[in-house]
């Protein structure tokens, strides 16, 4: 699965996600990647999110929207909300993976709870980083 989130010069945000699914999948199995609210979500009130991980758990956890809800209803930062979802809420139901998120101020969060994550971030305030965790 691959994905991107961005905040543009006008403070508008967006998210995109794309995947080939799972090796040897059958029965027309679909994961969270194309599901708005589960693997992908963007709302200028809160954040833009793209997820990667065990799709069935991310669907059941409505993960992307869950992060946005924590920001909107509990006033959490994008970093705290996405960390809460990946390190607590999704783990509680057995899900592993991670997400990338950006808010309308260009702040980025990239939490994950399993190894082997490929990530990159770049910002007009000087951040430019590509890492494999």
């Amino acid at each position, binding site marked *: 699965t691959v994905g*991107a*989130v961005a905040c543009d*010069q006008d403070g508008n*945000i967006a998210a*995109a996600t794309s995947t080939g699914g799972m090796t040897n999948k*059958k029965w027309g199995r679909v994961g969270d*990647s194309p599901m708005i609210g589960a693997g992908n979500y963007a709302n200028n009130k809160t954040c833009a999110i*793209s997820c990667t991980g065990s799709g069935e758990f991310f669907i059941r956890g409505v993960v992307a929207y869950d992060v946005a809800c924590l920001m909107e209803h509990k006033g959490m930062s994008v970093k705290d909300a996405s960390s809460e979802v990946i390190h607590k809420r999704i783990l509680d139901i057995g899900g592993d993976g991670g997400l990338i998120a950006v808010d309308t101020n260009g702040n980025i969060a990239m939490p994950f709870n399993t190894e082997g994550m490929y*990530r990159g971030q770049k910002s007009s305030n000087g951040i430019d980083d590509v890492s*494999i965790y």
Partner: protein
Amino acid sequence: MKTFSIAIHGGAGTLVKGMMTPELEAQYKLALQNALDAGYALLEDGKTAVDAVEEAVSVLEDSPLFNAGKGAVFTATETHEMDASIMDGKTLNAGAVSLITGIKNPVKLSRDVMEKSEHVFLAGDGAMQFAKELNYKLKDASYFYDEFRHKQWLDIKDTDSFQLDHASDKNEKSVAERSRSQKDSKFG
């Protein structure tokens, strides 16, 4: 001018600990940097966040290293089924496609669903029909063939196992063990 930024992910690693060589790591990092730079360049140029995420994901889809587009994994029937989605935080418009095949850049099709249809989510044959009406050129199976992906599939074909494109140690073992026990079970 407000702070603008972009973040990308290439999924969660197919290569578990110990399998990543320095050469391969350099290839992954270069592909990620290219995607990041492509998206960022659009933002720097004053383009929208939607343009930037579509571009960055397209670059990743064009790489065989990641499980999307060209690097998509094999299904149980040795085919490729791809899914993609995009959402615009300003308008709350969204587009998604699922179970599509032969499309070079599924994310572009998802954007077309968002902007050129009255729907949010198109799947399977209907999504392919939509792509054809927009004159998408279909790539044949050889474009999506990758030896590593094929080996991944051969390891678990004819079993009921499936494999995520990421693997914690725990997960890898369970997949391998499941796969082995199911293959052995054929011999009593």
